[in-house]
C-alpha cells in the first residue's frame, strides 16, 4: 500500500468506518511511514477539535422574524410582486401576443417548466417528488415570474 492509499484509509479510520482488515493494513503501513503516522494523528486531532469549535448563537428573535416573513407573504402582495406585475403587462403582453401568432393558442399550456426549476432551486432535496415540483400557492410571492409563466395564457392578459 502506498501513501496515497493510506491517506484514504486514514479518513475511513478517523470516521470510524474502516474495516478490521483496513485498519491492519493502515497500521502496517504506518509502522514504516512516519509521515502517514503523523498525518493520522493530526487528522484525529483536527477532527476532535473541530467538533469542539464554538457554535455561534442564532439571533434570539429568529422565530418572530420568520413568522413575520411568512405572514407578510401570506397576507398581501409585496412591492416586488406589484413591480413584477407591471413588467408583465409592459413587456409580457407583446411577447405573448407574438407567441400566439406564431404557435397558436394550443401550444401555450399553463405548464410547469419554470415551477420545476424553481422548486429544484429552492428545495433541491432528497426526494424526487420535490424536484418534480409540487408548488405551493405562496411560491408566487417569492418568485413572481414563476406565476407569470405558469399562467401564461390569453386569459391572463
Amino acid at each position, binding site marked *: 500500500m502506498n501513501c496515497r492509499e493510506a491517506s484514504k484509509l486514514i479518513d475511513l479510520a478517523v470516521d470510524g468506518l474502516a474495516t478490521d482488515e483496513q485498519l491492519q493494513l493502515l497500521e502496517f503501513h504506518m509502522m514504516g511511514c512516519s509521515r502517514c503516522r503523523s498525518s493520522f494523528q*493530526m487528522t484525529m486531532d483536527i477532527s476532535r477539535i473541530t467538533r469542539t469549535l464554538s*457554535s455561534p448563537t442564532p439571533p434570539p428573535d*429568529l422565530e418572530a422574524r420568520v413568522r413575520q416573513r411568512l405572514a407578510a407573504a401570506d397576507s398581501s402582495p409585496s412591492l416586488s410582486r406589484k413591480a413584477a406585475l407591471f413588467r408583465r403587462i409592459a413587456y409580457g403582453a407583446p411577447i405573448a401576443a407574438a407567441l400566439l401568432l406564431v404557435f397558436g393558442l394550443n401550444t401555450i399550456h399553463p405548464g410547469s417548466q419554470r415551477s420545476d426549476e424553481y422548486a429544484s432551486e*429552492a428545495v433541491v432535496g432528497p426526494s424526487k417528488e420535490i424536484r418534480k415540483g409540487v408548488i405551493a400557492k405562496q411560491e408566487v410571492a417569492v418568485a413572481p415570474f414563476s406565476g407569470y409563466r405558469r399562467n401564461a395564457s390569453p386569459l391572463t392578459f
Partner: protein
Amino acid sequence: MAYQLVKSGKRQKDTRSDSQLMVDLCGGDEDAFSEVIRRFQGPIYGLLIRMLGNEDEAEELLQETFCRLHRYRENYDPERPLVTWIFTIASNLAKKRWRRRSRWITVPLDYVNLTSPGKTAPHYESGRVELRASLEEAIGALPPHYREPFLLREKQGMTYEQIAEVMDIRIGTVKSRINRARTRLRRLLKDTWENWK
C-alpha cells in the same frame, strides 16, 4: 394568518421525532414549527456563518431556510431524515449566494469564542486555544466545496450518504472532497500542530 409570536411560561421538552413534527406542522400545528426552529437553528446557523463568513448574510439565509421549510412543508417525505432536508435547503441557499459573489470568502474570526475554559494545564490550554483559532481560520480558508462536506461531517456528524444527499453529489465525491479538505488543513496547520502536540 394569526401566528403565536410570544410564548409564555416554562416550556416542556418536546419529545416528538423530527418527522412527527413535520407531519404535525402539515396538519396545522404551528407549535411544531417552533420546535423545528429550536432544534435546527443552531446547527444551520453554525454552517451558514462558516460558509458565508458574514453574520448578516447568515442570519438572512437562516430565516429564509425556515421560511422555505414552512412554505414547502407538504413536500417533505416523513420517511427521510428532516436533518438532511433542512440542510439541503440551507446548502442550496448558500450556494446561490456564492454564485452571486463569484468568489471565495474567508471566514473572519470575530465570532470565534477563544476563551472556552478547559481543565488542562495552562500551557497546554493556551496551545489548544491557538490551535483552535488556527483551525477555525484554516477551515475558513478552504474552498467552499471542500469546506461544506468537511463541516457537515465533523460538526454535524453526518454520514457520507447524508452529505451526498445534502450537496447532491456522489458519495465518492464526498469522500474525495473530505480527503482533500483534511489534506489542506494538515498542510495549513502543520507548524501550529507540531508546537501543540
